[in-house]
């Protein structure tokens, strides 16, 4: 099927590119992941009583989240699965907890009701890291330098890094960025101006804001530079720019995208083996990331 170039690859409007990228940085909350976790435990439980206990055990009531009708349906489904799943509660719990890197003893099936209380929320970023860190093959790749460089960059999952950074960054650090801002619209509002001003229509409700966006804008521009180099056929420049980007930002927010651009650039240069290796690492590190779909396409794998 004919694939038109994505909007992200088309024009260089910085605001549009930020908007289009904003979705992939949207992650489910810890709260819903706790619920998923509670349900996953339910997959393996074998009686209604156990499901009920599990759902109330950790203050994460699977039942209360759904309407009463769907609760019954939910329990029915989970129980039917549980019947088939038999006594694998410990299997689920063990895997989930391993995924979090927690190695505490896991309750045996008889103590299912205790598990949810012991189990902390599973965030997708934690899961991502948990899913990949135990793998010896990704940790021992000694191939081309690009691979090594990539792995050094990705010891911490970037989404996690971003969240941490966002949580930790004091406003002062944000204010300290250089004055030149690629997004013109962000430089005009005086600092201290109201950031959110309700107005009559949606478009006007979004006001350009002051300096806090500058660093983000610069980071974005840096990634975009690599992207446009790649789109204009200059893979070498793209690789260089990706490396520069990763050097410049200690905890790059768009690290997954930068990694994906590196892989695409390597493919463009015909370095398929390196690209394939990096792509596998990427897909292991970022399961479910939108870019993994494109990487599979690049590698000629079935999606």
């Amino acid at each position, binding site marked *: 099927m004919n*694939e038109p170039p994505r909007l992200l690859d088309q024009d260089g409007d910085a605001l549009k590119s930020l908007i289009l990228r904003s*979705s992939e940085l949207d992650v489910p909350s810890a709260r819903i992941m706790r619920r*998923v976790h509670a349900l*996953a435990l339910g*997959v393996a439980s074998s009686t209604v009583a156990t499901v009920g206990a599990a759902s109330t055990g950790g203050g994460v009531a699977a039942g209360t989240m759904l309407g009463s009708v769907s609760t019954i349906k939910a329990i029915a489904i989970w129980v039917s699965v549980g019947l088939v799943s*038999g006594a694998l509660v410990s299997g689920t719990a063990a895997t989930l907890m391993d995924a979090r890197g927690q190695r505490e003893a896991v309750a045996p099936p008889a103590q299912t009701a205790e598990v949810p209380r012991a189990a902390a929320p599973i965030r997708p970023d934690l899961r991502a890291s948990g899913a990949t860190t135990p793998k010896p093959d990704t940790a021992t790749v000694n191939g081309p330098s690009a691979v090594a460089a990539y792995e050094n960059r990705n010891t911490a999952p970037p989404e996690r890094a971003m969240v941490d950074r966002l949580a930790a960054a004091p406003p002062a650090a944000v204010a300290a960025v250089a004055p030149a801002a690629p997004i013109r619209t962000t430089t*005009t509002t005086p600092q201290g101006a109201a950031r959110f001003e*309700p107005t009559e229509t949606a*478009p006007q409700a979004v006001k*350009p804001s002051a300096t806090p966006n500058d660093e983000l804008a610069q980071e974005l521009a840096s990634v975009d530079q690599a992207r446009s180099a790649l789109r204009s056929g200059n893979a070498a420049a793209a690789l260089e720019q990706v490396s520069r980007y990763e050097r410049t930002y200690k905890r790059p927010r768009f690290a997954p995208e930068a990694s994906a651009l590196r892989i695409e650039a390597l493919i463009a240069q015909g370095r398929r083996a390196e690209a394939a290796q990096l792509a596998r690492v990427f897909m292991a590190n970022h399961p479910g990331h939108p870019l993994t779909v494109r990487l599979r396409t690049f590698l000629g794998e079935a999606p």
Partner: protein
Amino acid sequence: MTATEGDLALRIALASRPPPPDMAEGLPRDRVQRFERIVSEHFAATWRFLRRLGLDEADTDDAAQEVLLVVVGKLDAINRGSERSFLFSTAFRVAAGVRRSRRRHAEIDEDLAPIAADGDANPEELLELKRARALLDRLLLPMPIELRAVFVLYELEGMTMAEIASALDLAPGTVASRLRRGREFFNARFAKVKQAQSGMRGVR
């Protein structure tokens, strides 16, 4: 009942009884692992898809959970390699249902509600990302869900046209035309935002 009939009934009963765990392939451990893999690889994307289809966060959480329940119920019927398609197609149906039940609210606040800050003391750059996302959602708000689904999967989730066709059970030509119309929609709305911004710059 003859002995043979009794024997047959017993055999049928035995055959339809769930097999004991860990006995052979395709049994609990496999299923649990498969479910976990599906969650780890596709849950976040499914959640994002629901969100971008216009559900608020609480509805998205509920809907995402409902999608997983469907997955569990049909785990054996989902072909290997089609998990993502299955999730998205289920998500689309669930989201359409939720939107129908919420329609009145959506119409009331369409285009009028300001993009509000959460009011918490987050670092400002987080607000910037959140605002970009809020703007994205507002740009998408009036887009019909059929166009929106294709637009989101292609432009934001990076899926191929073929994948989208399979996930949404559409003809390839339909995917292409919905994408085109979705883009026109999005670009027109975006142009308004830009226009509004340059207008504000002019005032200052």
